[in-house]
């Protein structure tokens, strides 16, 4: 690609004023706690830190690093100017939110003094401590933070392409507001007309493993609300014998879905669709099975973005090698072979993760350990595998599921039962989590 990279040093005056005035207010109320999020004083350094990817993890890391380091040169690389609040896509795809609600701008969260190179990294060269952009610019670093998110492999489902979303009964909640809005058009039509609905789930890790389930349950709820439930024959087709990694929630779902007339078709990984015929192919243990549908929710397999997948930073063996996820120590988030490289967010290969909630827990760990590396201190922070999913079961009702590597429930609010569906977790999803996400982008939670 010949795209010219653009470098911007961020210094938006009005934003600074709003931040200062707002933080002033909040800090007054909280005794100034907002201004001192770190237990250490800022570390003096002249190191050059490069962050690849300005999504949820990249912006959070940039904000934290710029506060925790003094004198460092921080560069963030991402060509994307708009920011998508991805956890809201499920609500867009089911008609509850308008697409505009999830659209934002990266510039609003970019910290002052950080160099933003508007390009994509085409090559990682960790042996030479360098990355190369798609404009051919070679950028050397002392420390690297990889936060590229993941890539949705539409091609891995034969016959599927993102252009098909919103046509011929095809929906896919991943991974853009436009796709989610087109999915809503299909779900709206399906819940009017009925027929066979296939709700698929890719093999391997996907971002927000709860999203395909939420789309399924919200579609069923919509049938009920429209009074057309008897028209829809719904199937949920997991690729294996599990619905969710947390065992209690897995058991809950194994009862909940059938109790709502959603048939579970175990061991049904989707491998192909024939859009014109409205026919899907699943590679079951008994061979390929073709099922005709009126609506299909396609969840394609996912992997780390190609430049990362093709680099030495990816896992070279083991279960994470299949998705080419970035190799990190699952507790310190440091690369074991390139120790000046850290990672967080969807791109890393850890047993649990791939949610914004994991980002919230991972980034402070990765940043703290990177800063400790610079300061020659022992690593003090560990990622416990924390992840969370407000599992929306109907409009107005959800379960706030939070767990860790041990798959134990670790509720943030002791008064919310992580096994019960009710209104309050829904209220959090609909009203509060977007604010929590934005605060995270500013490195404040």
């Amino acid at each position, binding site marked *: 690609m010949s795209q010219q990279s653009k470098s911007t040093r961020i210094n938006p005056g009005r934003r600074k004023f709003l931040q200062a005035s707002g933080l002033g207010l909040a800090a007054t109320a909280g005794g100034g706690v907002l201004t001192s999020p770190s237990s250490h004083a800022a570390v003096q350094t002249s190191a050059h830190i490069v962050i690849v990817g300005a999504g949820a993890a990249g912006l959070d890391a940039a904000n934290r690093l710029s506060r925790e380091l003094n004198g460092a040169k921080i560069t963030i690389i991402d060509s994307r100017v708009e920011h998508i609040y991805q956890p809201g896509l499920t609500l867009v795809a089911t008609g509850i939110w308008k697409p505009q609600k999830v659209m934002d701008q990266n510039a609003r969260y970019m910290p002052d003094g950080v160099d933003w190179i508007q390009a994509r990294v085409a090559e990682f060269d960790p042996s030479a401590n360098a990355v190369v952009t798609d404009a051919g610019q070679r950028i050397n670093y002392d420390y690297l933070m990889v936060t590229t998110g993941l890539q949705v492999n539409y091609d891995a489902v034969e016959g599927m392409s993102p252009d098909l979303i919103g046509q011929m009964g095809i929906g896919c909640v991943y991974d853009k507001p436009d796709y989610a809005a087109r999915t809503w058009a299909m779900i709206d039509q399906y819940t009017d007309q009925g027929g066979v609905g296939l709700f698929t789930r890719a093999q391997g890790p996907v971002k927000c493993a709860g999203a395909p389930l939420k789309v399924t349950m919200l579609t069923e709820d919509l049938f009920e609300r429209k009074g057309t439930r008897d028209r829809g024959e719904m199937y949920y087709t997991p690729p294996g014998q599990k619905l969710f990694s947390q065992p209690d929630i897995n058991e809950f779902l194994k009862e909940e879905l059938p109790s709502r007339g959603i048939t579970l078709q175990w061991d049904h990984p989707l491998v192909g669709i024939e859009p014109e015929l409205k026919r899907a192919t699943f590679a079951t243990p008994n061979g390929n099975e073709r099922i005709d549908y009126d609506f299909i929710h396609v969840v394609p397999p996912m992997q780390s973005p190609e430049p990362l997948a093709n680099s030495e930073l990816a896992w070279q063996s083991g279960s994470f090698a299949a998705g080419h996820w970035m190799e990190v120590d699952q507790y310190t988030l440091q690369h074991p072979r390139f120790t000046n490289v850290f990672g967080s967010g969807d791109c890393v290969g850890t047993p649990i993760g791939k949610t914004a909630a994991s980002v919230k827990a991972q980034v402070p760990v990765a940043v703290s350990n990177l800063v400790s590396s610079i300061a020659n201190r022992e690593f003090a922070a560990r990622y416990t595998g924390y992840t969370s999913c407000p599992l929306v079961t109907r409009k107005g009702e959800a379960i706030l599921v939070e767990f860790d590597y041990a798959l134990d429930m670790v509720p943030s609010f002791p008064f919310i039962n992580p096994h019960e569906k009710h209104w309050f977790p829904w209220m959090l999803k609909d009203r509060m989590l977007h604010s929590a996400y934005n605060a995270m982008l*500013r490195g404040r939670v």
Partner: protein
Amino acid sequence: MAFSLGGILAVLLETFRPLLPFFIGLVAVDVLATAYGLHRGSFGHAKARRWALIIGVAAMVVAFVSGPMLTQSTFADFSRIIDWVLLAGMSLGVGVAGFILSLPLASLLK
């Protein structure tokens, strides 16, 4: 995952960020009205407290009744006692804020 007080305030700040100019204006007017009331010795007189209380209670009731609607749901979705308790708590917070913010202005009433 534990939320610090700073984290909770940061989340609240993001929630109200679009309304921040309004709140800053309101607080500025309140500060001026408080200074004026203290200067005149009329801050928080009985009538002002009564009016502020009425406004606070009204804000609390409105928050309670509109809470579910603001989240595109209804009271029928309240399946646990904790839903009612938390909505009541949040409404109480709105009511107290209404009382505190309206008291300086109500103190200007004769």
